């Protein structure tokens, strides 16, 4: 029961942080509940599909199918997060003004919601497939599910959801005029961390071998396998022993996102403020 709780909580926790951020980012946008829950549902279904085909998947690309798949969906999530930030840097201000002016009646932002729903789906899929594999593996070994397993899994899910809620409420407590800046930064760091994680998978698969020296070792301060380390790993991509390639890709992703946001930023016009 405890093993089930620990594994389920750990995976749901990581997805929960990301969902919490996405919920805070989309505060006040009409239809976000449907998009986010759609993302979660797609992620859960995807996780089951991936779990069923794990054996076949891992045999692809000379036995590196898992790594290539993980790197691929992480890369896709990075693109979606980048696109969201660029889109918001252009339309965020209008959106906020419209929100204040028109209350609920906002259809703008649904494109960006699709991008974020995909990010949620990817997060749930990645973490969820491991949960499904573990639970089914144990159930198969025991010759059927047990109540302890179900209870452990459910408790893990509940605790993980709590993390999601706390992340969301924590971000909401930020005054609304700073929220946009804070969430933009969070999304950019999230994307950079995911890009570096994708590189880590490609390194493990022996596809990326250049710059594989460890740049620094901060494991004596904070191990990335500890609770706080895991949280920071998910949020800002903290790694206690990154390779040079991971650091380069991390910095590059941040720079590219910042540059694109700047290039596509809404021109500064002196429009009268919406009352």
């Amino acid at each position, binding site marked *: 029961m405890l093993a089930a709780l620990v594994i389920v909580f750990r995976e749901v926790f990581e997805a929960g942080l990301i969902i919490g951020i996405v919920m805070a980012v989309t505060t006040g946008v009409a239809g976000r509940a449907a998009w986010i829950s759609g993302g979660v549902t797609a992620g859960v279904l995807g996780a089951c599909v991936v779990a069923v085909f794990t054996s076949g998947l891992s045999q692809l690309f000379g*036995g590196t199918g898992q790594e290539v798949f993980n790197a691929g969906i992480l890369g896709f999530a990075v693109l979606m997060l980048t696109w969201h930030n660029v889109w918001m840097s252009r339309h965020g201000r209008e959106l906020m003004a419209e929100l204040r002016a028109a209350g609920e009646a906002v259809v703008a932002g649904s494109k960006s919601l699709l991008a974020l729903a995909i990010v949620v789906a990817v997060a749930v899929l990645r973490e969820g497939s491991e949960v499904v594999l*573990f639970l089914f593996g144990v159930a198969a070994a025991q010759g059927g599910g047990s109540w302890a397993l179900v209870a452990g899994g459910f408790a893990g899910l509940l605790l993980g959801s709590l993390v999601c809620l706390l992340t969301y409420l924590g971000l909401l407590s930020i005054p609304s005029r700073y929220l946009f800046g804070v969430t933009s930064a969070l999304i950019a760091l999230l994307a950079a961390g995911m890009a570096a994680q994708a590189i880590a998978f490609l390194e493990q698969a022996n596809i990326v071998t250049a*710059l594989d*020296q460890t740049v620094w070792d901060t494991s004596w301060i904070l191990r990335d396998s500890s609770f706080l380390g895991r949280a920071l790993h998910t949020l800002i991509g903290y*790694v206690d022993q990154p390779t040079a390639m991971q650091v380069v890709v991390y910095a590059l992703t941040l720079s590219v996102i910042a540059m694109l946001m700047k290039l596509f930023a809404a021109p500064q016009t002196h429009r009268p403020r919406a009352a």
Partner: protein
Amino acid sequence: MAEIRLAGMVNRICAFDRRHFLSFLLISPALPLLVSVARGEDTVALSLTIKDRQFDPAELHAPPGRAIEIHVKNLNPIVSEFESSDLHLEKIIPVGKEAVIRVRPQQPGRYNFFDDFHRETQGVLVVP
């Protein structure tokens, strides 16, 4: 008109460069390492199996400073996840399958690994 817009864009990018000098500072420790990329040493191949919830062998040895390739075969009747926080790797290994995991060159030390789905299955990589 086009030139002015272009100049504006260039200005923006330059301004951006100055402001993000910090990120280049971040990369700079990696630059000397760029030189040492072309090492061309052979990879050390190690192999082990997971059977009866134990690694066999439970202790692996590899020389320092060389890339390592670990071949893991899962002979348990249940799916495993070969994982190491010390070596920063994780890989699911289906029943009866063999997985190959590349590990970057390591400093001397003891590096634990385990089956994340069955934590009692523990092993260690020793780099003298």
